[in-house]
């Protein structure tokens, strides 16, 4: 999908360079650079503790980095909160989903961005539930996402259904970029296929998707580009069309450095 040669002609949607993050004495990220272009799916892989989640948290404003620069949409940015990133069109599906369990799907999708009724009722904060439900239905229809029982509290839904709501929420609001931290970790086969489909659909609308996964077949199925992290550093960029899962695992574990450029990979 991504045309490599055109990368140099295009500005990335998001470019982070030299990102470093410490937690006390622990070095979580060291001099990490990453670019995300419109219309591509980037997979972030790495062993436990490689810094994948930390990187996503920095890029989405959950954590602030110690050093490094971020350019988003052609402007230098430094997010002080996830809300700030969201307001610029960056949406995230968190590993623990970050949903309100006792609210229904529509309420969760609109949490913090509720529509209020026009006039005085709106000033008093009265919700326009019908409009929110209508919009949810049409948006989910457009994305071909099926969330059954929109009116049921999420606590009564299965894990897969909750995941569906969390993904739908991110996809519905994202205008620039979507991050997903382990979006398929808790899912069965059919549901995983559906989330992967959704990732492709989002990409096809031009909005890039960056996702973290441990599932190599998933990664190689849907990613246009694979970025490998190890001990807080980017150690390889892989092209899933030419690289193999073995290459990815080697880069992740740092066992054999036989991943080389020319074999469809560049060792960083």
């Amino acid at each position: 999908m991504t045309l490599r040669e055109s990368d140099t002609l295009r500005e990335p949607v998001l470019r982070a360079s030299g990102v470093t993050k410490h937690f006390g004495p622990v070095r979580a990220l060291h001099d990490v650079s990453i670019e995300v272009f419109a219309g591509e799916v980037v997979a972030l892989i790495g062993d436990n503790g490689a810094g994948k989640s930390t990187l996503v948290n920095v890029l989405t404003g959950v954590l602030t980095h110690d050093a490094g620069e971020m350019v988003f949409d052609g402007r230098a940015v430094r997010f002080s909160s996830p809300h700030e990133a969201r307001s610029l069109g960056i949406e995230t599906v968190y590993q623990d989903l970050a949903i309100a369990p006792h609210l229904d799907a529509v309420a969760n999708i609109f949490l913090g961005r509720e529509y209020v009724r026009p006039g005085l009722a709106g000033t008093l904060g009265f919700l326009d539930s019908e409009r929110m439900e209508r919009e949810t239905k049409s948006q989910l229809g457009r994305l071909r996402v099926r969330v059954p029982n929109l009116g049921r509290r999420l606590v009564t839904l299965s894990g897969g259904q909750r995941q569906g709501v969390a993904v739908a929420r991110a996809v519905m609001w994202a205008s620039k970029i979507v991050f997903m931290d382990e979006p398929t970790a808790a899912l069965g086969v059919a549901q995983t296929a559906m989330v992967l489909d959704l990732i492709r659909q989002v990409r096809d609308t031009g909005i890039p998707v960056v996702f973290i996964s441990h599932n190599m077949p998933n990664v190689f199925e849907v990613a246009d580009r694979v970025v490998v992290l190890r001990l807080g550093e980017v150690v390889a960029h892989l092209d899933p069309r030419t690289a193999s899962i073995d290459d990815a695992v080697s880069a992740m574990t740092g066992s054999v450095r036989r991943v080389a450029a020319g074999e469809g990979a560049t060792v960083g």
Partner: protein
Amino acid sequence: MATTDAAAVGGEKRSIDAVDLFSRFAPLIFLLLLVAVMSILEPGFRTERNLFNVLRQVSIIGILAIGMTFVILTAGIDLSVGSMLAFAGIVCASVAKGTRDLLVGGVTDPGGSRVLLAALAAIGLGMLIGAFQGTLIARIGIPAFIVTLGGLTAWRGATLLWSNGQPISSFSDDFTFWGQGFLGPVPVPVVFFLVLVAIGQVVLKYTQYGRWIYALGGNPEAARLSGLNTVLLGASVYVISGFCAGLAGFLQTSRLNSAEQVAGQGFELNAIAAVVIGGTSLFGGQGGVIGTFIGAMLIGVLQNALVIRNVNPYVQPIVVGAIIILSVLFDQLAKQRRR
């Protein structure tokens, strides 16, 4: 969480769980059952007068319980409402009387607009204390249990200090109307209680603020990531609780025609009992004021029934205690079934 669902994300068949359904409506079913049995056994129970009698008895604690519902929905607790009630009561009594000479010996207050001022002082004080406690809890991060346990002791002490341990009694008819008067057949405190139940319900179910309360209580991290101001939101419920305690302090003083140092002692536990029996989860995010209304009514009707049936009054607390545990037991059973 691997499901055998082949359709899409979701698509599991909906099952209606009898235990789940029962646990949600258990307090209401029990209340209706109690009313039905008592209506058959005791003709005196069924009268309009007795109904308003019950309502009046529960109205003060009911008002406290409405504020408590907001607090518990955020997974907080407010143990200080009984003491706030007493402190607000004694301050509002002083404001009503105005001068030091009137505080002792049965001279009444001037009435008129002074009563309004006294009521506003009580409510304002409650909200101020609520804001203070809410700030310590939501901003500084001291557990709600600790802050309001401190408040429980401190505001009671402040009440004693304020009038040197003396009650302030004897008020004008204008003042006592709010606690003793009627609007048509309905006692005034009952009107306040019912109006607050209605407002609470509307706010929780139909406004943005109400939705955020549920989100904060259910998953504070999700609320924060969704851009909600969780500090302001978390503190605000204690202001609501303080508002209710202040109003209750005014109504109680008016009803007893006296601001007592021991006013509202133990009310916090009755208010919490009404909330819990009404199905609001102490873990937050779940419940509402209609449930609290039913919980408060259940306690009130039960006490009334035991009195009418001439049951030893010392049995009452035991029965109420058993109901608290039973109501949560059903909830737990339903949760276990769900897993």
